[in-house]
């Protein structure tokens, strides 16, 4: 996506938002992602969600001790969100897909900057559709959670150990880089 195209999309998004908020989006619009009130993603959808997450928070190749984000996002949305929020997420996902006009469900990952310009534009606009904003923020939040609660981050950044080797009640943090939480 080229920058000019991206800017055009933002304009479209705000127009779409105005239309969308007035429009009653029925089940039909979201059945692609919803089944019996739960998010139901096929391999293609999951791949798309994984791409979105990677675009929002690029971590590819950092470590094999981070779980696949799309699986985690799906589990958390389905198990820990209210039925209304699951519905909101699914509608937002659909809106996102429409907004990006990705009928093939592919993002041109060479140009994530443009995608992010669109996304940030959506968040900046007060009139953006609630479901779309919710989807974007939830994917961002859960991608971050997936990273910061991963074995990679907890061990390498937070020095977490299930069985701490030692206990030092008053530890001088200026003296060593090897602190444990």
């Amino acid at each position: 996506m080229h920058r000019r195209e991206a800017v055009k999309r933002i304009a479209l998004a705000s127009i779409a938002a105005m239309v969308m908020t007035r429009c009653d989006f029925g089940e039909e619009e979201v059945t692609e992602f919803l089944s019996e009130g739960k998010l139901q993603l096929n391999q293609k959808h999951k791949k798309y969600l994984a791409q979105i997450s990677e675009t929002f928070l690029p971590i590819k190749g950092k470590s094999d001790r981070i779980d696949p984000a799309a699986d985690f996002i799906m589990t958390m949305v389905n198990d820990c969100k209210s039925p209304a929020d699951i519905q909101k997420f699914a509608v937002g996902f659909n809106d996102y897909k429409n907004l990006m006009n990705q009928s093939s469900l592919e993002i041109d990952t060479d140009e994530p900057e443009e995608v992010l310009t669109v996304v940030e534009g959506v968040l900046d606009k007060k009139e953006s559709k609630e479901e779309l904003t919710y989807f974007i923020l939830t994917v961002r939040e859960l991608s971050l959670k997936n990273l910061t609660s991963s074995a990679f981050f907890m061990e390498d950044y937070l020095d977490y150990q299930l069985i701490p080797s030692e206990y030092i009640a008053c530890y001088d943090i200026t003296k060593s880089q090897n602190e444990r939480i």
Partner: protein
Amino acid sequence: MNESNYDAIIIGAGMSGGWVAKELCEQGLKTLLLERGPDVKHIQDYPTTNMQPWEFKHRGEMPYDVQKENPIVSRCYAFKEDNAHFMVKDKEHPYKQDKPFDWIRGYQVGGKSLLWARQTQRWSDFDFEGPARDGFSVDWPIRYKDLAPWYSKVEKFAGITGNKDGLETLPDGEFLPAWQLNCVQDYFTDVIAKNYKDRHVIFGRCAHLAEAKDIHREQGRTQCMKRTECERGCPFGGYFSSVSSTIPWALKSGNLTLKPYSVVESVMYDEESGKASGVRVIDSNTKEVTEYTSKIVFLNAGSINTVSILLNSKSDRFPNGLGNDTGLLGKYVGFHNYRGKVNAIHDGHINTAVKGRIPTGAYIPRFQNIHRQETDFLRGYAATFFAGRSKQVEMGEGFGHALSSQILDNQPEYGPWHVGSGIMGATIPKETNYIKLDETETDEWGNPLIRISMEYDDNDEKMLKHFFGQFTEMFEKAGFENITQADSKQAPGLDIHEMGGARMGKDAKTSVLNKWNQLHNCKNVFVTDGACMTSTSTQNPSLTYMAISARAANYAVEALKKGEI
């Protein structure tokens, strides 16, 4: 079906029941331990114990449906993905709240001893003498000297880590060497010592093996590794639970029969002998009813369940429940007021942090109304003191590489020290606070639903106000900043220290149990869980339940030998 013939039956395989089992079995009594929930075997039945935080499907969060179906237990801080299987779900075991009461339970072998926070303090005579001094509730029939040797016995076996602090308000015990408090806890200790003669900040005594002695190794337990994942069950046996300690010990004697899935419906009374003859049990799976007979019966089902079993044990002699000639059974229940928290930030000690973890904090014993009545409320409160500092994960701003580099290119920095205190206030057991049985509705096993009514009173409100004032002042003296006061307004129950309902006393007209925890008018029945508590004081109660249980069990063995019961 009728199954006989045990020397003793214990109802409830939790914290107090485990102690009774150990004491009776060690002395050769053929003992039946009945537990309504499933068996939990040390180590093998701790399914989550070795899981890393990232191995939990929801990274610790409880699923929406579970929370929605179980609003009561969801309010408990300990109800998490790693130990939810040890906690009773509201839906499975309903009860009625005449006044809001969040009843937190653990129905399994081990009871709530698997889940507890392991804080253990002895009572002193200032606590036992409280009711006699201010006239609310009845006088305790025992004093500190009656319980002191039993506290020692329990502490040595269970393993309690602490310091000998030499405080008259909080007697010292048989301690394993304590860990060190951290710099900010030490600093606060000094500030308080300099500013107040009557206030002390001490290491929070706890049921952990800071050092394993021979008696602990004999139980198959080893030193606490300070993982602080205790409520999953500890593979090292580093903390005391009935599952890691007393129950396997009792089983080793060959005198214990442990029957899980056994819901005790009632204690049977034999009109001819004037004694209890045993218990009636419903198999929790098949609903089959079995009667077991024994010479003595111990009730250790957890205060509220114990009272309900007694109320449900009706006979011609006791139409209102076993031992309930006075109508007092189920009344004068109490709890602890845990509503208040004072939190703050400490900007000092910026170059220090804690490396590793310990499973306890600091404790501030009660300092009000010790030698004389000096406040506008009766009795008093103790408090916790927490100080900690952790590396902060910044959630970053924006999207894309800008976001990931904010998080991954920088090592997280330590945030400021957070400090806080929580009130642990005594409540006055009142006649209007009660446990009763519903007259029409029953549970899945045909037992009447329990009705609970407990509430705070003016004394609690005044105490809370005092706590906020004093702790704000103490925090200010320490130079802590951003001091906030929070009243959670939580319903009684979340303290998980429900007490009373079958109180001990000197007089059968005003109490249910005598000084040996026998029903005044049915002497082969003993109640040694929290139901026996005449007043609540401020200490975490379980150490006292365990000492009372050991004492009563040993008395029962002697009385049986002498043919007195």
